[in-house]
């Protein structure tokens, strides 16, 4: 990496780092100055200390829940992509079903968390995976489908002029063109999967689960631990998002629509 690139990277990230430092400092200062109850918001130093003290149980709980999230992500996303391919290949089917898919995504999935726990068992990680999967399914389906069906008509015409068949057109044009959209959906799903797993655990789960750890800590007024757990949950979510974003960058570096901020 040349010096110029390193410099550019530093400059790019400097504002974010500055905000982070200022944020933490403000947090520490304001909590002390306003004598905020420890219940609401412990000082960052307190949370950091708790983090260190409880690192083992936090780590294991985090991994446990992350596995549920990962499973749900894999299940929900692959289903979403599969259904998107079907809808894109058989348009009438898609046009008929997409309104239902959209309506279904409007249903507050949290209402189904207790039902999944009942179906698959409170202590069974699959119940939380199912919740995560449902949360992932819709964004991946909607975004991937949009990508598969918003190709420049001229690109399709070109393929037809080569007498390329439907499958070939799919493989060579639609699927590559849909990758940026698909990744947009996958990034959303990555964050939602972790949240889905924790929401599920809040309605009941084994004590090895992060959501249960946070819930119990709150119930026993051990708020530094609760907050440390929240930080762990967030950290896993960020790492998961980052991993998907990295995969996106590696596979779609050709996409000219990538701008200087990451949205979607």
């Amino acid at each position, binding site marked *: 990496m040349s010096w110029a690139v390193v410099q550019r990277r530093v400059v790019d990230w400097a504002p974010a780092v500055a905000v982070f430092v200022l944020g933490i400092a403000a947090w520490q200062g304001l909590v002390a100055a306003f004598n905020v109850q420890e219940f609401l918001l412990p000082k960052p130093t307190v949370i950091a200390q708790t983090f260190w003290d409880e690192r083992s149980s936090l780590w294991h709980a985090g991994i446990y829940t992350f596995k549920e999230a990962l499973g749900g992500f894999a299940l929900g996303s692959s289903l979403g992509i599969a259904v998107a391919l079907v809808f894109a290949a058989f348009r009438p089917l898609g046009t008929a079903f997409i309104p239902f898919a959209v309506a279904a995504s409007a*249903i507050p999935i949290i*209402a189904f968390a207790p039902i999944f726990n009942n179906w698959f068992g409170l202590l069974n990680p699959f119940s939380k995976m199912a919740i995560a999967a449902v949360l992932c399914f819709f964004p991946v389906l909607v975004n991937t489908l949009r990508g598969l069906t918003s190709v420049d008509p001229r690109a399709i015409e070109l393929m037809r002029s080569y007498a390329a068949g439907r499958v070939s057109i799919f493989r060579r044009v639609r699927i590559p063109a849909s990758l940026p959209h698909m990744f947009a959906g996958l990034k959303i799903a990555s964050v939602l999967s972790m949240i889905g797993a924790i929401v599920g655990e809040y309605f009941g789960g084994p004590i090895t689960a992060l959501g249960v750890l946070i819930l119990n800590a709150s119930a026993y007024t051990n708020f530094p631990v609760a907050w440390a757990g929240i930080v762990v949950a967030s950290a896993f979510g960020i790492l998961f998002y980052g991993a998907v974003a990295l995969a996106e960058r590696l596979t779609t570096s050709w996409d000219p629509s990538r701008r200087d901020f990451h949205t979607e």
Partner: protein
Amino acid sequence: MASIAIEQPGRARVGEATHAAKRAGLVVVGVAVFWGLWEAYRWIGETLGITWPFRVDATNMPHIHDMLAAFNKPLQPGGPTLLHYEWHWALFTAKEALLGFVLGALIGFGLAVLLAHSRILRRGLLPYIVISQTVPILAVAPMVVVGLGTKGVTPWISVAVIATFLTFFPVAMNTLRGLLSPDPRSLELMRSYAADRRSVLWKLRVPASLPFVFSALKLSATACVIGAIIGETPASIQDGLGGAIVNFNQYYSTGPERLWATNIVCAVLGLVFFTAIVVAERLVLHRAPEHVA
């Protein structure tokens, strides 16, 4: 960019009426299909004794007509029907969701305008805005409700705050994308008019961003309802759908249809909010039809 020849605007309106009728018909068909599938699976499952992925029995899969019938049954012996309660719970949650939606939309929009005008702020704040959504708001909800409570904020407003948290994000991100979407030519044109930043914002960026804003509002419509229900649950607020879910979940085995009935109400609430935005979008947006394959 050269485009298609002149359209006939009048003809479209006749087509729209039959289109809407077709849509309504499709909804009825869809509901019927779902109902059929549910009952069929239940029947097959019970006959064959299916236990994977879950046991098929009366507790796990109540009949749909039982779920609907539950609305008519009284909650307490001799008391008002479940429907009566569900209606009030739904209104309570809707109130929180609506406030959350409005606040979230305003904050999201304001944030987007701010970030659209400053690259430094974008670089500094965007990562944290994205990160904010990785925090399981469910876990933070009790702290928010109690904390705001000590400052004299009534619980339902605290729940609205939680709904705001889930709502502002799609609005902020999509609006930002929309505000930054005009191409360099459009911006050059504005420069040639010596237009100031405010004019560029209101005459170019904001109108250009409206399609993005509406797609975000559709996401937010569902997010605010989810946020409201999530906010109520751990804070043990009894007057809304979240509280109902927790209670009916606790006593699930004695009356599974009640939880399902509540879920139906949640679904309807989510759909109502979503449809409102779809209607608003139809009224407000007049854009070029997408030219895609």
